[in-house]
């Protein structure tokens, strides 16, 4: 059974500035979704729900059109259908923002009368999504979305909307999001989040943008087509048979004759490698047998023996006609202004005795911590996946936004980062404030696996499993599994199985920086922090060095 939220994409820690919105008080996010579904003052594309105060805002825009901000304890839900720029079946539900016909003529607004007097108007067909001049399919036309055109001589024309790769795939199926879950020989696929019968490294949280859901066939690693691990102990993995879409794939951006970035869009005709070897034709298997054929990679322009970069390499390459050199990079001239990445300047080689802590609000922190308070890995600042953002090195040149290290580019309270968890946009980092440090005392050998101490808290206390059940103001805590006197559905033993929400003990299920809290039995007070002492830092913990490693890597 699904819930109303299945058709929404959830992102924690996100906030949208939105002129068109309505504010409600709801007890649950489902109720808030109901509000959005039934919103009649505008088309509700998303809603915001704040977990502790249970405030609900329905929004006309989403992250495609509105600026997104960071905010703790806020969760953004966006209606999936409005995020997709592709169509399913004949596109009657298409709600993307394509506004040109297949011949490139701009569409006429559905609410306009010129140059064409429309039969289909927003007033007559309120459910057809006839906004602005976006392509739509109000009459269930089998040829798909269309629009009235701004060309007086052409009343209407169809639009070129790519098919969502839910029932079929384009190219090599890198964007396939369908539900085929058996291999070409009929074996059932293993779930991606399981390690049985085959252990593997394709952890969904490590490949957030690859949609490694359930046991559906996917192509996360540049194979010719989608595949999965199988439930047969004797067959580790196998390709799947996913139908190819009948409509043409999305039109790629025009190629370049020079090198920009990694050259994935290079479409020039250089066919000699950097050491002077002639390139082998991609369609040939001699002298080197390979799988990078034009048939396997229909959308990578593997023409003739031209240098290409079909698989995320660092620059265009080719197999060579030299038997002793299987493949080599090619030397492609850079496009103007597309400077090569400057080599990393090596840190001068001196021993630094520093603790992993930050001064003040952490704006000057330059350490290498890269995990958040709740243990999520940080997203690299240079990456836009899974979270698009504007905290880039060129926007914040003095913020040292390197790798995925915790930083505080916008002078927040403490260092933070975007997370690799698609559903959690950002979190504060797992760093102590230097002023909280206490000097190390005489050494005592640590155990390799430390047993947590239940009378005090480490960091923000997210691992606290003690039995304190009164708030700092002396109020008794409400049972987490109870809805009385305060009904809540967000933090329950069911929704947060790993958070230790036993009885009415103080806990920190949402990684609140101020530590464990609980709902209270006082009807006038929904929730309050608890007062639990901090544990003294252990002298030596396994895996933590007193001298910060350089962490150099080959560039």
């Amino acid at each position, binding site marked *: 059974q699904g819930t109303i939220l299945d058709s929404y994409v959830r992102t924690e820690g996100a906030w949208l500035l939105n002129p068109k919105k309505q504010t409600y008080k709801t007890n649950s996010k489902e109720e808030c979704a109901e509000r959005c579904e039934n919103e009649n003052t505008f088309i509700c594309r998303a809603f915001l729900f704040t977990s502790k105060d249970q405030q609900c805002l329905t929004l006309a825009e989403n992250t495609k059109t509105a600026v997104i901000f960071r905010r703790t304890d806020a969760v953004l839900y966006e209606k999936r259908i409005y995020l997709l720029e592709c169509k399913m079946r004949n596109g009657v539900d298409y709600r993307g923002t394509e506004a040109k016909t297949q011949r490139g003529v701009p569409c006429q607004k559905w609410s306009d009368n010129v140059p064409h007097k429309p039969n289909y108007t927003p007033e007559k067909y309120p459910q057809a999504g006839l906004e602005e001049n976006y392509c739509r399919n109000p009459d269930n036309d089998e040829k798909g979305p269309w629009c009235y055109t701004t060309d007086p001589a052409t009343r209407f024309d169809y639009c070129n909307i790519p098919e969502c790769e839910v029932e079929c795939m384009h190219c090599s199926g890198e964007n396939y999001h369908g539900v085929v879950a058996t291999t070409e020989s009929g074996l059932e696929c293993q779930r991606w989040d399981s390690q049985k019968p085959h252990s593997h490294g394709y952890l969904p*949280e490590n490949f957030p943008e690859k949609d490694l859901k359930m046991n559906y066939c996917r192509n996360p690693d540049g194979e010719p087509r989608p595949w999965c691990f199988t439930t047969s102990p004797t067959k580790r993995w196998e390709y799947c048979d996913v139908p190819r879409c009948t409509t043409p794939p999305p039109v790629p951006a025009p190629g370049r004759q020079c090198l920009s970035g990694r050259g994935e869009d290079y479409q020039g005709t250089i066919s000699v490698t950097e050491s002077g070897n002639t390139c082998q034709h991609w369609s040939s298997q001699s002298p080197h047998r390979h799988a990078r054929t034009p048939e396997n990679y229909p959308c990578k322009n593997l023409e003739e023996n031209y240098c290409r970069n079909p698989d995320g390499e660092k620059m265009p390459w080719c197999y060579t006609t030299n038997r002793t050199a299987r*493949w080599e990079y090619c030397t492609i001239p850079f496009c103007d202004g597309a400077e090569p990445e400057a080599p990393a300047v090596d840190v001068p*080689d001196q021993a630094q005795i520093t603790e992993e802590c930050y001064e003040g609000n952490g704006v000057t922190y330059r350490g290498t911590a890269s*995990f958040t308070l709740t243990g999520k890995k940080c997203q690299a600042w240079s990456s836009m996946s899974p979270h698009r953002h504007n905290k880039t090195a060129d926007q914040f040149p003095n913020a040292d936004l390197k790798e995925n290290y915790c930083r505080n580019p916008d002078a927040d309270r403490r260092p933070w980062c975007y997370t690799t968890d698609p559903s959690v946009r950002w979190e504060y980092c797992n760093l102590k404030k230097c002023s909280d440090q206490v000097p190390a005392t005489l050494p005592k050998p640590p155990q390799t696996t430390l047993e947590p101490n239940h009378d005090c808290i480490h960091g923000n206390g997210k691992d606290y499993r003690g039995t304190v059940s009164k708030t700092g103001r002396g109020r008794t805590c409400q049972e987490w599994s109870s809805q009385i006197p305060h009904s809540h559905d967000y933090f329950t033993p069911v929704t947060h199985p790993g958070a230790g929400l036993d009885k009415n003990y103080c806990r920190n299920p949402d990684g609140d920086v101020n530590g464990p809290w609980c709902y209270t039995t006082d009807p006038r007070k929904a929730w309050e922090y608890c007062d639990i002492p901090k544990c003294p830092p252990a002298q030596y913990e*396994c895996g*933590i060095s007193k*001298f910060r490693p350089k962490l150099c890597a080959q560039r």
Partner: protein
Amino acid sequence: IVAGCISHPHSWPWQISLRTSFGLHFCGGTLIDPQWVLTAAHCLEKSSRPAAYKVYLGLHRERALEASVQKRGVEKLFKEPHRVDIALLKLSSPAIINDYVIPICLPKENSMLGGREKCYVTGWGETKGTGGDGYLKETGFPVIENKICNRPEFLNGRVGNHELCAGNIHGGTDSCQGDSGGPLVCKDQDKFVQHGVTSWGLGCAQPMKPGVYVRVSNYITWIKNVMENN
């Protein structure tokens, strides 16, 4: 270590140097407990006698002249019973844990390292002319999923499930001879965890030939049993 860089002194305090009885370095190892070191079984092929080996801890330079150096004999050797390239050494007496000597954490049993994880290897082994000889060097690179590593153009099916690959597919940096037995560590929150024991490779730092490491999480039960029973 080929390429990479000279590490900050004592910034990998679990790294140990496995030596002959007359003090010649020949393999790496990792301190996992004040009295126990994890290394590669193939480092112990020269002799099955514990007295043939010495363990040096708390050093940055191979010469081991620093005041922080601790030297221990080996009381007992334990090779993994199914000929996997991993072994345990019990030191003749516990090492003193201080700023320069700290054990590494071990992963949870059968925990799987995700692809793309960034991990680090360290050692005093062969540098292939990339400098830093005689100093503890380090380098970092991503884990490569076994499925990719076993592709024809990589290691063509040679890597078993009990092993993991790590390196840059266009080569350039790698562990090498003399680093064997040492740690492949990855960060987990604020701690480093040892996921691999440096085991083998086809050459060093060659394109499409990542290094191969024994997957430590497969052997947590064996490690615990040996430590508890000895």
